[in-house]
């Protein structure tokens, strides 16, 4: 018959084995991302993130339950010694058996998952699911064992109902390994400072293991970003997101069939378009060009002189990309909207508002434009 100490050691070494294999699994599965193209995108995958988070949470649960179970087993064994009974030993043996089979299963999981399914996340997904499944199994096993131990306790220990603390309090006490206040004298240190005494309570287990987990996570983090390069650094992340966004916008515009740009834009004269153009003009353009287009900080838009070309395409380009002091508006308004603004601006021509700014730029005549374009060719720089 094994002594309580060795039994405890064996259980905890089993537990450690399980934990190690889970950590290894986490790390190796992340290496898989690196091996397969297009690697970094899968990390943005919310599913992958959720799974990893779940894995970590379950891991913490396992650690906690493991601690709790060890504690329970210890109490049980203590009690048995007193009662000279054999029942508990069987339970502890059973526990050892169960845990060992589980940990063997966890190790198998790595090699058994097929890597043949196409797509980068298939292998990762299944191995992660396997880890999760194993973790759930372990938790289940731990729970069954715990229930088993606790049931036996209930039968043997008689307590008057009123003295038992509420379950949540008891659970909280166990979670923190609280020493009952009445027994505090045993852990009080033999000194005091200005009347302040100190106890030497054990570290709350969840605190200690939580600390260990953050350290492990930190190592994994650094490993992934700076050794395995399996997670994208800021700049890569940026490029990926830009590419994704471009594709999305392109697909949207194609689907919608609205693809006007500076090469295809024509003068809009429809009242609805002009009204829409005017509305934007009144929020975005008035600060520099004045509400009537007479010009203030920016040039007069109602005369025949244009700094960057006065035909529809050039005005469209000037608004879209900006030039010198003129800001670009492509980030704020769609091409359609810019075409509407262009239409409105053209409609201001010849309105001769009061206090208008003096003419700037080159003369542009509507009819002459048909013959030869005086446009400035490169607006964007």
């Amino acid at each position: 018959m094994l002594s309580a100490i060795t039994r405890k050691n064996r259980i905890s070494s089993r537990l450690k084995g399980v934990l190690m294999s889970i950590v290894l699994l986490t790390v190796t599965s992340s290496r898989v991302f690196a091996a397969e193209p297009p690697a970094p995108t899968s990390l943005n995958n919310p599913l992958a993130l959720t799974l990893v988070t779940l894995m970590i949470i379950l891991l913490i649960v396992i650690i906690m339950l493991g601690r709790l179970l060890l504690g329970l087993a210890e109490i049980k064994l203590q009690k048995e010694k007193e009662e000279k009974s054999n029942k508990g030993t069987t339970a502890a043996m059973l526990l050892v058996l169960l845990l060992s089979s589980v940990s063997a299963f966890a190790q198998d999981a790595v090699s058994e998952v097929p890597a043949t399914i196409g797509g980068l996340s298939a292998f990762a997904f299944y191995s992660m699911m396997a880890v999760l499944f194993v973790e759930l199994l372990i938790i289940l096993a731990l729970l069954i064992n715990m229930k088993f131990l606790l049931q036996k306790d209930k039968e043997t220990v008689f307590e008057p109902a009123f003295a038992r603390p509420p379950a949540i309090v008891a659970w909280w006490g166990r979670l923190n390994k609280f020493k009952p206040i009445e027994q505090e004298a045993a852990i009080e240190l033999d000194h005091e400072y200005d009347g302040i005494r100190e106890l030497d309570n054990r570290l709350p287990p969840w605190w200690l293991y939580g600390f260990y987990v953050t350290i492990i996570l930190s190592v994994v983090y650094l490993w992934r970003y700076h050794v395995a390069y399996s997670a994208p650094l800021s700049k890569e992340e940026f490029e990926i997101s830009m590419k994704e966004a471009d594709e999305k916008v392109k697909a949207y515009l194609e689907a919608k069939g609205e693809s006007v740009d500076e090469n295809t834009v024509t003068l809009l004269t429809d009242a609805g378009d002009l009204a829409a153009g005017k509305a934007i003009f009144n929020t975005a353009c008035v600060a520099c060009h004045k509400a009537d287009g007479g010009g203030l900080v920016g040039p007069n838009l109602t005369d025949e002189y244009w700094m960057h070309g006065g035909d529809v395409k050039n005005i469209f380009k000037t608004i879209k990309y900006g030039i010198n002091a003129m800001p670009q508006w492509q980030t704020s308004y769609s091409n359609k909207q810019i075409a509407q603004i262009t239409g409105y601006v053209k409609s201001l021509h010849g309105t001769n508002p009061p206090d208008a700014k003096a003419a700037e730029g080159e003369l542009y005549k509507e009819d002459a434009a048909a013959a030869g374009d005086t446009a400035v060719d490169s607006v964007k720089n």
Partner: protein
Amino acid sequence: MQMEKFYYDNKIVKAFGYATVIFAVVGMLAGLWAAIQIYAPSTSLGLAPTTFGRIRPLHTNAIIFAFVGNSIFTGVYYSLQRLCKTRMFSDKLSWIHFWGWQLIIASAAITLLMGYTTGKEYAELEWPIDIAITLVWVVFGINMFGTILKRRERHLYVAIWFYIATWVTIAMLHIVNSFEIPVSFMKSYSWYAGVQDALVQWWYGHNAVAFFLTTPILGLMYYFLPKAANRPVYSYRLSIIHFWALIFLYIWAGPHHLLYTSLPDWAQSLGTVFSLMLIFPSWGGMLNGLFTLRGVWDKVREEPILKFMVVAITCYGMATLEGPLLSLKNVNAIAHFSDWIIAHVHIGGLGWNGFMAFAIMYYLIPKMWGTTLYSKKLANNHFWLGTIGIILYAVPLYWAGFSQSLMWKTFTPEGQLKFQFLETVTNIIPMYVTRSVGGLVYLIGALLMVYNLYKTIVQGKFIPNEEAEAAPLQKLERHGKEHWHRWIERRPVTLLVASLIVVAIGGILEFVPAFLVKSNVPTIASVKPYTPLELQGRDIYVREGCYTCHSQMIRPFRDEVVRYGEYSKAGEFVYDHPFQWGSKRTGPDLARIGGKYSDSWHYNHMDDPASMSPGSVMPSYSWLLDNKLDTSSTPAKIRAMQKLGVPYPEGYDRKANTDVKAQSESIAASLKKDKIETPADREIIALIAYLQRVGKDIKQEKKNEQTALK
């Protein structure tokens, strides 16, 4: 054993206590004013000294160094004497410390309002004051260590470990971050530039929070909480582990203020992981505090002092969990530059620092006046007002930060930004209003405390020298096995040195590579030093505290690149002494403002921001239009920059003002074209010169590349 009789010095505690209460009110008023200015810019009164850019540093400095600083000294001077069973080492040093510190505060208030600032957050004070702080801090250190060395208690209690670590770390942080080259009596340039300046500054900024707002307060908690609750401290070994882990890990975490910036990725990652590892050491302090209250929770229901402490410690726990979460890149991407961060720090500031300071005041004052608190009911009311104030303050700001940040990032399906920057600001103005109401409620609570303490003082009689008795220090007798850590608790100097080593490691391992490895800041050939006029303009930018609302750091995100332009590169900031990346965007980023608007736009915008962007909450800076630029400082500034390695040609300091004149006139001419008549020698001209330059060099680089390709 012959007992020795001695007297605790309560007078110095009283002085620091009064200062605490006064600066609590002053600092909070400044904060309230700043909060109101955000949605009602006209409350800046149109005067330079009372504008947000100067009131905000006044608020942060007053709260951190005047209110919390004095509350730390109050608690330390009270508890240290009692924990060492001796009077302070030297009354004279105590009073030099007290008056020195108050003088520093007074000069800080005056100089900050006058616009003398280094432009580095929480380290804004100019070099003469930096030196004064160093001297006073040394005086405090000598006095504290003298007291410890003449103690009648063999071992140092955990509170004192925290005091020692605080002292030595703050000394290190302050000295390293304040390396600056004086230009004139009240003007200096940071020794470091750009990325390196940012790294040093946030190493300092983060650890000012750690070692000025956290560790000393934890020390105070270890004294005042068990005293007030009359319970033994929960766990000695938890104290040991969380103390050493906390001070070792904290120092590394600074770079989490710079995630997604031009700081090298390795440094950012260190910031993230060390923040993550900080969760549990921080919580160790919370647990040791809260678990000490085991068995006396019924008392907490009655005793306002304990109530304040419980909420304070809980806020500490929440803030130290939130901090590491904010250090995760995906959370930081949303939270940084937004009001979320402001909410986060105020959970710590109002909850942890404020409530601990109040609890200590409620504990000390009746004790030192030999009486009981005038009104427990008032103190309870204060507690509730304070708590409601915190909630009213923080919840709207969390909401504001989150919603504004998401608005920044929203695109239309066509690929355009959905919201103009200004729309995202006006959208959260109701939240700003609510937040200031929260601040007001909290302030009213503090005023109740002032009244309550006043009445307590009136009804009691002050005990200037409190009698005490203790045996002299005996020869050490070992009986039985002792904890290994007891060894260092007998050796204050060893403890001091060990703490210094532990806190120095993180800084050294981050700084040395960042300064020595060239690849961390790749050079960009087209980045040139500022012209003298731009340099003068930059100093105006710093003086007016523009960095309190505007960042100069475009992060590599789609929305920022579309909104502001190409993301910022490390090599762009090599001549920036100090860096001006900022930490909050109440206004848009300015890293690529150069060339975006016309000179006349800037001129009108500075005079009346709402005329150029209707609805803007930026205050008017009309004095810049009238103030004459002081060009007499130009040669000294150029020489200082040359000493810092900025490659101006030899002897350029003598020619610089000629260039100032030429550039000013060309800007005045460009303004004239837009019907703005102004003399060329005004400050606005220099500021426009600077703004038109910011972030433009890299565009030049692009052009050069293109011509090379052709």
